[in-house]
Protein backbone atom coordinates (compact mmCIF):
# COMPACT_ATOMS: atom_id res chain seq x y z
CA UNK A 1 0.00 0.00 0.00
CA UNK A 2 2.87 2.37 0.86
CA UNK A 3 4.63 1.66 -2.42
CA UNK A 4 1.55 2.17 -4.57
CA UNK A 5 0.89 5.41 -2.74
CA UNK A 6 4.39 6.77 -3.32
CA UNK A 7 4.29 5.62 -6.97
CA UNK A 8 1.09 7.62 -7.47
CA UNK A 9 2.61 10.58 -5.63
CA UNK A 10 5.58 10.52 -8.04
CA UNK A 11 3.16 10.50 -10.96
CA UNK A 12 1.27 13.49 -9.56
CA UNK A 13 4.49 15.33 -8.75
CA UNK A 14 5.42 15.14 -12.44
CA UNK A 15 2.25 17.08 -13.16
CA UNK A 16 2.38 19.53 -10.27
CA UNK A 17 5.62 21.15 -9.11
CA UNK A 18 3.96 22.25 -5.84
CA UNK A 19 4.03 18.69 -4.47
CA UNK A 20 6.70 18.03 -1.83
CA UNK A 21 7.46 15.01 0.31
CA UNK A 22 8.66 15.57 3.87
CA UNK A 23 9.71 12.70 6.08
CA UNK A 24 10.63 12.68 9.74
CA UNK A 25 13.50 10.29 9.01
CA UNK A 26 11.35 7.28 8.15
CA UNK A 27 10.41 5.42 4.99
CA UNK A 28 13.45 3.28 4.20
CA UNK A 29 12.78 1.35 0.96
CA UNK A 30 9.56 3.32 0.43
CA UNK A 31 10.29 7.01 -0.17
CA UNK A 32 13.37 6.57 -2.39
CA UNK A 33 11.55 6.73 -5.75
CA UNK A 34 10.27 10.21 -4.88
CA UNK A 35 13.59 11.32 -3.38
CA UNK A 36 15.44 10.24 -6.50
CA UNK A 37 12.98 11.71 -8.99
CA UNK A 38 12.50 15.01 -7.13
CA UNK A 39 15.51 15.64 -4.89
CA UNK A 40 14.69 19.35 -4.60
CA UNK A 41 11.20 18.60 -3.36
CA UNK A 42 12.13 15.89 -0.90
CA UNK A 43 13.12 16.96 2.63
CA UNK A 44 14.13 14.72 5.50
CA UNK A 45 13.46 17.02 8.44
CA UNK A 46 15.16 14.66 10.86
CA UNK A 47 13.46 13.00 13.81
CA UNK A 48 11.23 16.00 14.46
CA UNK A 49 7.54 15.42 13.77
CA UNK A 50 6.36 18.68 15.34
CA UNK A 51 8.71 20.66 13.17
CA UNK A 52 7.65 18.64 10.10
CA UNK A 53 4.06 19.85 10.55
CA UNK A 54 5.16 23.40 11.38
CA UNK A 55 7.35 23.47 8.26
CA UNK A 56 4.50 22.08 6.18
CA UNK A 57 2.25 24.85 7.46
CA UNK A 58 4.72 27.51 6.38
CA UNK A 59 5.23 25.77 3.02
CA UNK A 60 1.50 25.42 2.37
CA UNK A 61 0.85 29.05 3.22
CA UNK A 62 3.24 29.94 0.40
CA UNK A 63 1.31 27.77 -2.06
CA UNK A 64 3.17 24.46 -1.88
CA UNK A 65 1.55 21.04 -1.33
CA UNK A 66 3.53 19.24 1.39
CA UNK A 67 3.03 15.53 2.17
CA UNK A 68 4.35 14.58 5.63
CA UNK A 69 5.42 10.97 6.06
CA UNK A 70 5.94 8.97 9.24
CA UNK A 71 4.71 5.97 11.20
CA UNK A 72 1.02 6.60 11.96
CA UNK A 73 1.38 7.14 15.70
CA UNK A 74 4.30 9.56 15.31
CA UNK A 75 2.62 11.40 12.45
CA UNK A 76 -0.54 12.10 14.41
CA UNK A 77 -0.03 12.01 18.16
CA UNK A 78 3.37 13.68 18.57
CA UNK A 79 2.54 16.77 16.49
CA UNK A 80 -1.19 16.81 17.28
CA UNK A 81 -1.36 20.36 18.55
CA UNK A 82 0.77 21.54 15.61
CA UNK A 83 -1.77 19.94 13.25
CA UNK A 84 -4.62 21.65 15.10
CA UNK A 85 -3.02 25.10 15.22
CA UNK A 86 -1.33 24.77 11.82
CA UNK A 87 -3.13 23.23 8.84
CA UNK A 88 -6.49 22.92 10.59
CA UNK A 89 -6.65 26.45 12.02
CA UNK A 90 -5.26 27.97 8.83
CA UNK A 91 -7.22 25.65 6.51
CA UNK A 92 -4.08 24.77 4.59
CA UNK A 93 -3.59 21.75 2.31
CA UNK A 94 -1.08 19.82 4.39
CA UNK A 95 -1.20 16.03 3.89
CA UNK A 96 -0.24 13.59 6.61
CA UNK A 97 0.74 10.07 5.64
CA UNK A 98 0.57 7.75 8.64
CA UNK A 99 1.97 4.35 7.85
CA UNK A 100 1.16 1.26 9.86
CA UNK A 101 -2.24 1.87 11.42
CA UNK A 102 -3.21 -0.50 14.22
CA UNK A 103 -0.78 -3.27 15.12
CA UNK A 104 1.14 -3.23 11.82
CA UNK A 105 4.39 -2.55 13.68
CA UNK A 106 3.54 -5.39 16.06
CA UNK A 107 6.85 -6.36 17.59
CA UNK A 108 7.84 -2.69 17.66
CA UNK A 109 5.85 -2.49 20.85
CA UNK A 110 3.11 -0.24 22.13
CA UNK A 111 4.90 3.02 21.21
CA UNK A 112 4.65 1.93 17.58
CA UNK A 113 1.02 0.76 17.65
CA UNK A 114 -1.36 3.34 16.23
CA UNK A 115 -4.68 2.76 17.96
CA UNK A 116 -5.89 6.34 18.48
CA UNK A 117 -5.06 8.03 15.16
CA UNK A 118 -8.53 7.78 13.62
CA UNK A 119 -10.18 9.11 16.79
CA UNK A 120 -7.90 12.12 17.11
CA UNK A 121 -7.93 12.93 13.41
CA UNK A 122 -11.74 12.64 13.31
CA UNK A 123 -11.88 15.14 16.17
CA UNK A 124 -10.29 17.84 13.98
CA UNK A 125 -12.89 19.88 12.13
CA UNK A 126 -12.01 20.00 8.44
CA UNK A 127 -9.59 17.09 8.44
CA UNK A 128 -10.23 14.49 5.75
CA UNK A 129 -9.54 11.03 7.17
CA UNK A 130 -8.90 8.20 4.72
CA UNK A 131 -8.04 4.56 5.42
CA UNK A 132 -7.73 2.65 2.14
CA UNK A 133 -8.17 -1.12 1.99
CA UNK A 134 -5.33 -1.91 -0.38
CA UNK A 135 -2.71 -0.45 -2.71
CA UNK A 136 -5.00 0.26 -5.67
CA UNK A 137 -7.47 2.05 -3.42
CA UNK A 138 -4.68 4.04 -1.73
CA UNK A 139 -3.60 5.24 -5.18
CA UNK A 140 -7.20 5.98 -6.18
CA UNK A 141 -7.82 7.94 -2.98
CA UNK A 142 -4.67 9.98 -3.53
CA UNK A 143 -5.64 10.64 -7.15
CA UNK A 144 -9.03 11.85 -5.93
CA UNK A 145 -7.94 14.21 -3.13
CA UNK A 146 -4.36 15.24 -3.86
CA UNK A 147 -5.22 18.85 -4.61
CA UNK A 148 -8.09 19.23 -2.13
CA UNK A 149 -7.95 22.54 -0.25
CA UNK A 150 -8.37 20.90 3.17
CA UNK A 151 -5.80 18.96 5.19
CA UNK A 152 -5.88 15.19 4.64
CA UNK A 153 -4.83 12.26 6.81
CA UNK A 154 -3.99 9.01 5.01
CA UNK A 155 -3.91 5.96 7.28
CA UNK A 156 -1.97 3.43 5.30
CA UNK A 157 -1.30 -0.21 6.07
CA UNK A 158 2.36 -1.12 6.33
CA UNK A 159 1.89 -4.03 3.96
CA UNK A 160 -0.94 -4.54 1.52
CA UNK A 161 -3.29 -7.49 1.89
CA UNK A 162 -2.13 -10.36 -0.30
CA UNK A 163 -5.06 -9.96 -2.67
CA UNK A 164 -6.31 -6.52 -3.71
CA UNK A 165 -10.08 -6.38 -3.31
CA UNK A 166 -11.11 -2.74 -3.72
CA UNK A 167 -11.07 -2.77 -7.51
CA UNK A 168 -9.19 0.51 -7.27
CA UNK A 169 -12.43 2.26 -6.42
CA UNK A 170 -12.63 5.23 -4.09
CA UNK A 171 -15.32 7.85 -3.62
CA UNK A 172 -15.09 10.71 -1.18
CA UNK A 173 -17.68 10.53 1.61
CA UNK A 174 -18.85 7.11 0.48
CA UNK A 175 -18.71 3.59 1.86
CA UNK A 176 -18.12 0.65 -0.46
CA UNK A 177 -20.34 -2.45 -0.40
CA UNK A 178 -17.97 -5.36 -0.81
CA UNK A 179 -20.53 -8.12 -0.55
CA UNK A 180 -24.27 -8.44 0.11
CA UNK A 181 -26.09 -10.85 2.43
CA UNK A 182 -29.23 -10.72 4.55
CA UNK A 183 -27.85 -12.23 7.76
CA UNK A 184 -25.52 -9.74 9.37
CA UNK A 185 -23.83 -6.44 8.51
CA UNK A 186 -20.07 -6.34 8.96
CA UNK A 187 -18.48 -2.88 8.75
CA UNK A 188 -14.73 -2.46 8.63
CA UNK A 189 -12.02 -0.07 7.47
CA UNK A 190 -8.48 -0.12 6.11
CA UNK A 191 -6.53 -3.28 5.50
CA UNK A 192 -8.75 -5.19 7.93
CA UNK A 193 -11.54 -5.27 5.34
CA UNK A 194 -9.69 -8.16 3.67
CA UNK A 195 -9.86 -10.20 6.88
CA UNK A 196 -13.53 -9.26 7.24
CA UNK A 197 -14.20 -10.58 3.74
CA UNK A 198 -12.57 -13.87 4.69
CA UNK A 199 -14.81 -13.97 7.77
CA UNK A 200 -17.86 -13.41 5.56
CA UNK A 201 -16.83 -16.36 3.41
CA UNK A 202 -16.49 -18.54 6.50
CA UNK A 203 -19.94 -17.44 7.66
CA UNK A 204 -21.39 -18.21 4.23
CA UNK A 205 -20.00 -21.72 4.35
CA UNK A 206 -21.97 -22.13 7.60
CA UNK A 207 -25.14 -20.79 6.02
CA UNK A 208 -24.97 -17.21 7.30
CA UNK A 209 -24.89 -14.52 4.65
CA UNK A 210 -23.17 -11.24 5.51
CA UNK A 211 -23.06 -7.82 3.97
CA UNK A 212 -19.58 -6.35 4.15
CA UNK A 213 -19.33 -2.58 4.11
CA UNK A 214 -15.91 -0.97 3.76
CA UNK A 215 -15.40 2.56 5.05
CA UNK A 216 -12.22 3.88 3.42
CA UNK A 217 -13.37 7.45 3.97
CA UNK A 218 -14.02 8.16 7.66
CA UNK A 219 -14.23 11.93 7.29
CA UNK A 220 -16.24 13.24 5.61
CA UNK A 221 -18.24 10.35 7.07
CA UNK A 222 -20.35 8.32 4.63
CA UNK A 223 -23.51 9.09 6.62
CA UNK A 224 -26.06 8.35 3.89
CA UNK A 225 -24.45 5.01 2.97
CA UNK A 226 -24.21 4.02 6.63
CA UNK A 227 -27.85 4.96 7.32
CA UNK A 228 -29.05 2.90 4.37
CA UNK A 229 -26.98 -0.14 5.27
CA UNK A 230 -27.89 0.06 8.96
CA UNK A 231 -31.60 0.40 8.20
CA UNK A 232 -31.43 -2.81 6.17
CA UNK A 233 -29.44 -4.77 8.73
CA UNK A 234 -30.60 -7.35 11.28
CA UNK A 235 -27.45 -7.11 13.36
CA UNK A 236 -24.34 -4.96 13.06
CA UNK A 237 -20.71 -5.78 13.87
CA UNK A 238 -17.91 -3.24 13.41
CA UNK A 239 -14.32 -4.41 13.07
CA UNK A 240 -11.32 -2.10 13.33
CA UNK A 241 -7.62 -2.15 14.06
CA UNK A 242 -8.03 0.83 16.38
CA UNK A 243 -9.12 1.34 19.96
CA UNK A 244 -12.85 1.29 20.57
CA UNK A 245 -13.29 4.94 21.59
CA UNK A 246 -13.59 7.37 18.71
CA UNK A 247 -13.00 5.03 15.81
CA UNK A 248 -15.20 3.40 13.19
CA UNK A 249 -17.41 1.67 15.78
CA UNK A 250 -18.02 4.99 17.49
CA UNK A 251 -18.95 6.55 14.16
CA UNK A 252 -21.41 3.73 13.40
CA UNK A 253 -22.88 4.00 16.93
CA UNK A 254 -23.44 7.71 16.39
CA UNK A 255 -25.24 7.07 13.11
CA UNK A 256 -27.36 4.30 14.62
CA UNK A 257 -28.36 6.45 17.58
CA UNK A 258 -29.11 9.57 15.58
CA UNK A 259 -31.15 7.60 13.04
CA UNK A 260 -33.14 6.08 15.91
CA UNK A 261 -32.29 2.58 14.73
CA UNK A 262 -32.31 -0.14 17.39
CA UNK A 263 -30.17 -3.00 16.12
CA UNK A 264 -28.13 -5.63 17.90
CA UNK A 265 -24.70 -4.01 17.73
CA UNK A 266 -21.17 -4.96 18.80
CA UNK A 267 -17.78 -3.40 18.21
CA UNK A 268 -14.63 -5.43 17.69
CA UNK A 269 -11.62 -3.25 18.34
CA UNK A 270 -7.96 -3.47 19.24
CA UNK A 271 -6.76 -3.74 22.82
CA UNK A 272 -3.18 -3.65 24.06
CA UNK A 273 -2.12 -6.76 25.97
CA UNK A 274 -0.77 -4.70 28.85
CA UNK A 275 1.76 -5.61 31.55
CA UNK A 276 4.64 -5.11 29.13
CA UNK A 277 3.55 -8.04 26.95
CA UNK A 278 3.89 -7.82 23.20
CA UNK A 279 4.23 -9.88 20.09
CA UNK A 280 3.71 -10.04 16.36
CA UNK A 281 0.95 -8.17 14.59
CA UNK A 282 -0.77 -11.52 13.96
CA UNK A 283 -0.68 -12.40 17.68
CA UNK A 284 -1.95 -8.95 18.71
CA UNK A 285 -4.76 -9.12 16.18
CA UNK A 286 -5.74 -12.60 17.34
CA UNK A 287 -5.78 -11.39 20.96
CA UNK A 288 -8.10 -8.54 20.03
CA UNK A 289 -10.39 -10.86 18.10
CA UNK A 290 -9.49 -9.26 14.77
CA UNK A 291 -8.86 -12.40 12.70
CA UNK A 292 -11.30 -13.92 10.22
CA UNK A 293 -12.14 -16.81 12.55
CA UNK A 294 -12.77 -14.56 15.55
CA UNK A 295 -14.77 -12.05 13.47
CA UNK A 296 -16.97 -14.89 12.16
CA UNK A 297 -17.57 -16.31 15.64
CA UNK A 298 -18.35 -12.83 17.02
CA UNK A 299 -20.89 -12.40 14.22
CA UNK A 300 -22.50 -15.76 15.02
CA UNK A 301 -22.72 -14.89 18.73
CA UNK A 302 -24.27 -11.53 17.91
CA UNK A 303 -26.90 -13.17 15.71
CA UNK A 304 -27.67 -15.72 18.40
CA UNK A 305 -28.03 -12.99 21.03
CA UNK A 306 -30.20 -10.91 18.75
CA UNK A 307 -32.62 -13.81 18.34
CA UNK A 308 -32.93 -14.11 22.11
CA UNK A 309 -33.30 -10.40 22.83
CA UNK A 310 -36.91 -9.56 23.73
CA UNK A 311 -38.72 -7.13 21.45
CA UNK A 312 -39.62 -4.89 24.34
CA UNK A 313 -38.61 -4.47 27.95
CA UNK A 314 -40.88 -6.22 30.46
CA UNK A 315 -42.03 -3.58 32.95
CA UNK A 316 -44.18 -5.98 35.02
CA UNK A 317 -41.61 -6.34 37.80
CA UNK A 318 -41.43 -2.59 38.34
CA UNK A 319 -43.79 -1.02 40.86
Amino acid at each position, binding site marked *: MRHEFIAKLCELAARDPRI*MLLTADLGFSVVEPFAQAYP*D*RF*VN*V*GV*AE*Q*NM*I*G*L*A*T*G*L*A*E*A*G*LLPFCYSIATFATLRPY*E*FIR*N*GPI*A*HELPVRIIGVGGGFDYGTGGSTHHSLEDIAVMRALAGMMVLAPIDGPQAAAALERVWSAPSPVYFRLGKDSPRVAISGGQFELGRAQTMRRGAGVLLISTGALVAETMTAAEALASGGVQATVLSVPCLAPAPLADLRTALADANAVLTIEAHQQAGGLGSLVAEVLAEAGLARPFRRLAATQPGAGRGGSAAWLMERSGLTAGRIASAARELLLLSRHEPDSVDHSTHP
Partner: protein
Amino acid sequence: MEPDQALADQQILSSRALRKLILEESYRAHVGHIGSALSVVDILAALYGGAMRLNSPDDPDRDRFVLGKGHAALALYAALFLRGWLGRAELASYCADDSRLGVHPTHHLPGVDFSTGSLGLGLSIGTGSALAARLLGKDRRTYVLLSDAECNEGSTWEAAMFAGHHRLANLIVVVDVNGQQALGPTAEIMNQTRMPELWSSCGWAVREVDGHAPAAVREAIRPHHQQPLVVLARTISGRGVSFMERQVRWHYLPMSDEQYAMALAESEALL
Protein backbone atom coordinates in the same frame (compact mmCIF):
# COMPACT_ATOMS: atom_id res chain seq x y z
CA MET B 1 22.17 46.86 -4.54
CA GLU B 2 21.60 46.20 -0.89
CA PRO B 3 17.91 47.01 -0.42
CA ASP B 4 18.15 47.60 3.31
CA GLN B 5 19.62 51.08 3.08
CA ALA B 6 16.53 52.55 1.51
CA LEU B 7 14.46 50.90 4.18
CA ALA B 8 16.72 52.08 6.93
CA ASP B 9 16.16 55.61 5.74
CA GLN B 10 12.45 55.26 6.29
CA GLN B 11 11.02 56.73 9.42
CA ILE B 12 11.06 54.49 12.46
CA LEU B 13 7.64 53.74 13.87
CA SER B 14 7.23 55.67 17.09
CA SER B 15 7.74 53.54 20.17
CA ARG B 16 5.95 56.16 22.19
CA ALA B 17 2.85 55.89 19.99
CA LEU B 18 2.93 52.10 20.29
CA ARG B 19 3.14 52.25 24.09
CA LYS B 20 0.28 54.71 24.28
CA LEU B 21 -1.97 52.50 22.17
CA ILE B 22 -1.08 49.42 24.22
CA LEU B 23 -1.93 51.18 27.47
CA GLU B 24 -5.14 52.70 26.10
CA GLU B 25 -6.48 49.49 24.67
CA SER B 26 -5.53 47.20 27.52
CA TYR B 27 -7.06 49.68 29.96
CA ARG B 28 -10.25 49.98 27.93
CA ALA B 29 -10.52 46.18 27.48
CA HIS B 30 -9.49 45.59 31.12
CA VAL B 31 -7.12 42.76 30.21
CA GLY B 32 -3.53 41.92 31.08
CA HIS B 33 -0.43 40.85 29.10
CA ILE B 34 0.62 44.49 29.24
CA GLY B 35 4.13 43.72 30.43
CA SER B 36 4.74 41.33 27.50
CA ALA B 37 3.47 43.85 24.96
CA LEU B 38 5.56 46.72 26.35
CA SER B 39 8.58 44.43 26.28
CA VAL B 40 8.57 44.21 22.46
CA VAL B 41 7.54 47.76 21.56
CA ASP B 42 10.96 48.90 20.38
CA ILE B 43 11.52 45.67 18.44
CA LEU B 44 8.22 46.07 16.60
CA ALA B 45 9.01 49.73 16.04
CA ALA B 46 12.14 48.65 14.21
CA LEU B 47 10.49 45.80 12.28
CA TYR B 48 7.34 47.65 11.23
CA GLY B 49 9.12 50.98 10.96
CA GLY B 50 11.38 50.04 8.09
CA ALA B 51 13.27 46.82 8.61
CA MET B 52 10.63 44.59 7.04
CA ARG B 53 9.62 44.98 3.43
CA LEU B 54 5.90 45.54 3.71
CA ASN B 55 4.16 46.86 0.65
CA SER B 56 0.57 45.94 1.31
CA PRO B 57 -1.16 43.20 3.30
CA ASP B 58 -2.31 41.62 0.03
CA ASP B 59 1.16 41.35 -1.50
CA PRO B 60 2.13 37.65 -1.36
CA ASP B 61 5.78 38.56 -1.82
CA ARG B 62 6.11 40.92 1.13
CA ASP B 63 8.16 39.80 4.10
CA ARG B 64 6.46 37.43 6.55
CA PHE B 65 6.20 38.05 10.26
CA VAL B 66 5.42 35.40 12.85
CA LEU B 67 4.66 36.51 16.39
CA GLY B 68 5.88 33.43 18.24
CA LYS B 69 5.04 35.10 21.54
CA GLY B 70 1.42 35.46 20.56
CA HIS B 71 0.45 36.91 23.93
CA ALA B 72 2.01 40.21 22.87
CA ALA B 73 -0.57 40.56 20.10
CA LEU B 74 -1.72 43.97 21.31
CA ALA B 75 1.71 45.39 20.43
CA LEU B 76 1.36 43.87 16.94
CA TYR B 77 -2.14 45.32 16.51
CA ALA B 78 -0.82 48.74 17.50
CA ALA B 79 1.99 48.40 14.93
CA LEU B 80 -0.47 47.32 12.22
CA PHE B 81 -2.62 50.33 13.09
CA LEU B 82 0.30 52.74 12.87
CA ARG B 83 1.25 51.10 9.59
CA GLY B 84 -2.24 51.82 8.30
CA TRP B 85 -3.25 48.19 7.95
CA LEU B 86 -5.78 48.19 10.77
CA GLY B 87 -8.58 50.70 11.38
CA ARG B 88 -8.89 52.64 14.63
CA ALA B 89 -12.40 51.28 15.23
CA GLU B 90 -11.19 47.71 14.85
CA LEU B 91 -8.23 48.36 17.14
CA ALA B 92 -10.74 49.57 19.72
CA SER B 93 -12.52 46.22 19.48
CA TYR B 94 -9.55 44.53 21.23
CA CYS B 95 -10.91 41.66 23.33
CA ALA B 96 -14.54 42.63 22.68
CA ASP B 97 -17.14 40.04 21.75
CA ASP B 98 -17.15 39.16 18.05
CA SER B 99 -13.79 40.92 17.56
CA ARG B 100 -10.94 39.69 15.35
CA LEU B 101 -8.52 41.08 17.92
CA GLY B 102 -7.97 38.67 20.77
CA VAL B 103 -5.14 38.35 23.28
CA HIS B 104 -3.41 36.12 20.69
CA PRO B 105 -3.36 37.01 16.99
CA THR B 106 -5.22 35.22 14.20
CA HIS B 107 -4.35 35.04 10.53
CA HIS B 108 -7.81 36.30 9.63
CA LEU B 109 -6.45 39.81 10.17
CA PRO B 110 -4.92 41.46 7.09
CA GLY B 111 -1.16 41.42 7.46
CA VAL B 112 -1.10 38.65 10.04
CA ASP B 113 0.23 35.60 8.24
CA PHE B 114 -0.12 33.01 10.98
CA SER B 115 -2.24 32.49 14.06
CA THR B 116 -0.08 31.98 17.13
CA GLY B 117 -0.44 31.68 20.87
CA SER B 118 0.76 28.18 21.57
CA LEU B 119 4.44 28.69 22.34
CA GLY B 120 6.97 26.75 20.29
CA LEU B 121 4.95 26.75 17.08
CA GLY B 122 6.21 30.05 15.71
CA LEU B 123 9.76 29.22 14.71
CA SER B 124 8.67 25.99 13.05
CA ILE B 125 6.10 27.74 10.86
CA GLY B 126 8.50 30.58 10.18
CA THR B 127 11.15 28.10 9.08
CA GLY B 128 8.67 26.53 6.66
CA SER B 129 7.85 29.96 5.35
CA ALA B 130 11.54 30.74 4.77
CA LEU B 131 12.10 27.36 3.12
CA ALA B 132 9.14 28.01 0.83
CA ALA B 133 10.61 31.35 -0.26
CA ARG B 134 13.87 29.62 -1.15
CA LEU B 135 12.14 26.80 -3.05
CA LEU B 136 9.93 29.23 -4.95
CA GLY B 137 12.83 31.58 -5.71
CA LYS B 138 11.21 34.49 -3.85
CA ASP B 139 13.32 37.31 -2.54
CA ARG B 140 11.33 37.69 0.66
CA ARG B 141 12.32 37.16 4.25
CA THR B 142 10.60 35.70 7.27
CA TYR B 143 10.94 37.41 10.64
CA VAL B 144 9.98 35.55 13.82
CA LEU B 145 9.67 37.17 17.24
CA LEU B 146 10.12 34.65 20.04
CA SER B 147 9.91 35.05 23.78
CA ASP B 148 12.79 33.76 25.84
CA ALA B 149 10.42 31.34 27.57
CA GLU B 150 9.55 29.98 24.14
CA CYS B 151 13.10 28.70 24.00
CA ASN B 152 12.04 26.20 26.70
CA GLU B 153 9.97 24.46 24.01
CA GLY B 154 11.72 21.53 22.33
CA SER B 155 10.01 22.27 19.04
CA THR B 156 11.82 25.63 18.91
CA TRP B 157 15.08 23.70 18.75
CA GLU B 158 13.78 21.23 16.16
CA ALA B 159 13.21 24.23 13.93
CA ALA B 160 16.47 25.94 14.94
CA MET B 161 18.46 22.84 13.97
CA PHE B 162 16.63 22.56 10.66
CA ALA B 163 17.12 26.20 9.71
CA GLY B 164 20.79 26.07 10.68
CA HIS B 165 21.41 22.86 8.77
CA HIS B 166 19.72 24.21 5.65
CA ARG B 167 21.37 27.63 6.02
CA LEU B 168 18.13 29.54 5.68
CA ALA B 169 19.67 32.99 5.49
CA ASN B 170 16.27 34.52 4.73
CA LEU B 171 15.12 33.66 8.25
CA ILE B 172 15.61 36.25 10.99
CA VAL B 173 14.63 35.59 14.57
CA VAL B 174 14.46 38.16 17.33
CA VAL B 175 14.27 36.74 20.84
CA ASP B 176 12.67 39.06 23.36
CA VAL B 177 15.07 38.35 26.20
CA ASN B 178 13.27 39.99 29.09
CA GLY B 179 14.53 37.37 31.50
CA GLN B 180 11.09 36.67 32.77
CA GLN B 181 8.53 33.98 32.27
CA ALA B 182 5.02 33.33 33.49
CA LEU B 183 5.88 32.30 37.03
CA GLY B 184 9.18 34.04 37.65
CA PRO B 185 12.65 34.92 36.36
CA THR B 186 14.18 32.66 33.69
CA ALA B 187 17.30 32.57 35.86
CA GLU B 188 15.31 30.54 38.37
CA ILE B 189 12.99 28.57 36.05
CA MET B 190 15.13 27.75 33.01
CA ASN B 191 18.48 29.44 32.97
CA GLN B 192 19.41 30.91 29.58
CA THR B 193 22.93 32.17 30.09
CA ARG B 194 24.16 29.78 27.37
CA MET B 195 21.64 30.97 24.77
CA PRO B 196 24.25 32.41 22.36
CA GLU B 197 26.17 29.13 22.31
CA LEU B 198 22.99 27.10 21.84
CA TRP B 199 21.89 29.05 18.77
CA SER B 200 25.41 29.19 17.45
CA SER B 201 25.82 25.43 17.78
CA CYS B 202 22.65 25.02 15.68
CA GLY B 203 24.33 26.92 12.85
CA TRP B 204 22.95 30.40 13.44
CA ALA B 205 24.61 33.78 13.32
CA VAL B 206 24.06 35.33 16.73
CA ARG B 207 23.90 39.02 17.58
CA GLU B 208 23.07 40.61 20.89
CA VAL B 209 21.50 44.02 21.20
CA ASP B 210 19.70 46.40 23.54
CA GLY B 211 16.11 45.62 22.64
CA HIS B 212 14.96 49.07 23.62
CA ALA B 213 17.06 50.90 21.06
CA PRO B 214 15.05 50.65 17.81
CA ALA B 215 17.85 51.92 15.62
CA ALA B 216 20.26 49.38 17.15
CA VAL B 217 17.70 46.61 16.73
CA ARG B 218 17.20 47.59 13.12
CA GLU B 219 20.92 47.50 12.57
CA ALA B 220 21.20 44.08 14.26
CA ILE B 221 18.46 42.45 12.21
CA ARG B 222 20.25 42.90 8.93
CA PRO B 223 20.36 39.38 7.50
CA HIS B 224 23.62 37.50 7.65
CA HIS B 225 23.38 36.18 4.05
CA GLN B 226 24.98 32.82 4.82
CA GLN B 227 23.17 31.64 7.90
CA PRO B 228 19.88 32.22 9.64
CA LEU B 229 20.21 35.06 12.10
CA VAL B 230 19.09 35.28 15.70
CA VAL B 231 19.11 38.59 17.49
CA LEU B 232 19.04 38.21 21.25
CA ALA B 233 17.37 41.46 22.24
CA ARG B 234 17.79 42.32 25.91
CA THR B 235 14.56 43.88 27.08
CA ILE B 236 12.59 44.79 30.17
CA SER B 237 9.06 43.52 30.56
CA GLY B 238 6.66 46.38 31.26
CA ARG B 239 9.22 48.81 29.82
CA GLY B 240 8.38 52.45 30.36
CA VAL B 241 6.09 52.05 33.35
CA SER B 242 8.10 51.98 36.58
CA PHE B 243 5.68 49.89 38.59
CA MET B 244 5.34 47.33 35.80
CA GLU B 245 8.99 46.84 34.93
CA ARG B 246 10.26 43.32 35.63
CA GLN B 247 7.12 42.48 37.59
CA VAL B 248 5.63 39.06 36.89
CA ARG B 249 2.19 40.26 37.98
CA TRP B 250 1.96 42.52 34.92
CA HIS B 251 2.06 39.44 32.74
CA TYR B 252 -1.48 38.94 33.95
CA LEU B 253 -3.12 41.96 35.57
CA PRO B 254 -5.27 44.71 34.08
CA MET B 255 -4.85 48.31 35.27
CA SER B 256 -6.94 50.29 37.71
CA ASP B 257 -7.89 53.90 36.84
CA GLU B 258 -5.06 55.26 38.95
CA GLN B 259 -2.50 52.88 37.54
CA TYR B 260 -3.57 53.75 34.03
CA ALA B 261 -3.11 57.48 34.60
CA MET B 262 0.34 56.89 36.08
CA ALA B 263 1.34 54.48 33.31
CA LEU B 264 0.32 56.91 30.56
CA ALA B 265 2.19 59.79 32.12
CA GLU B 266 5.35 57.76 32.65
CA SER B 267 5.42 56.11 29.27
CA GLU B 268 4.92 59.41 27.47
CA ALA B 269 7.96 60.80 29.20
CA LEU B 270 9.98 58.07 27.47
CA LEU B 271 11.19 58.42 23.86
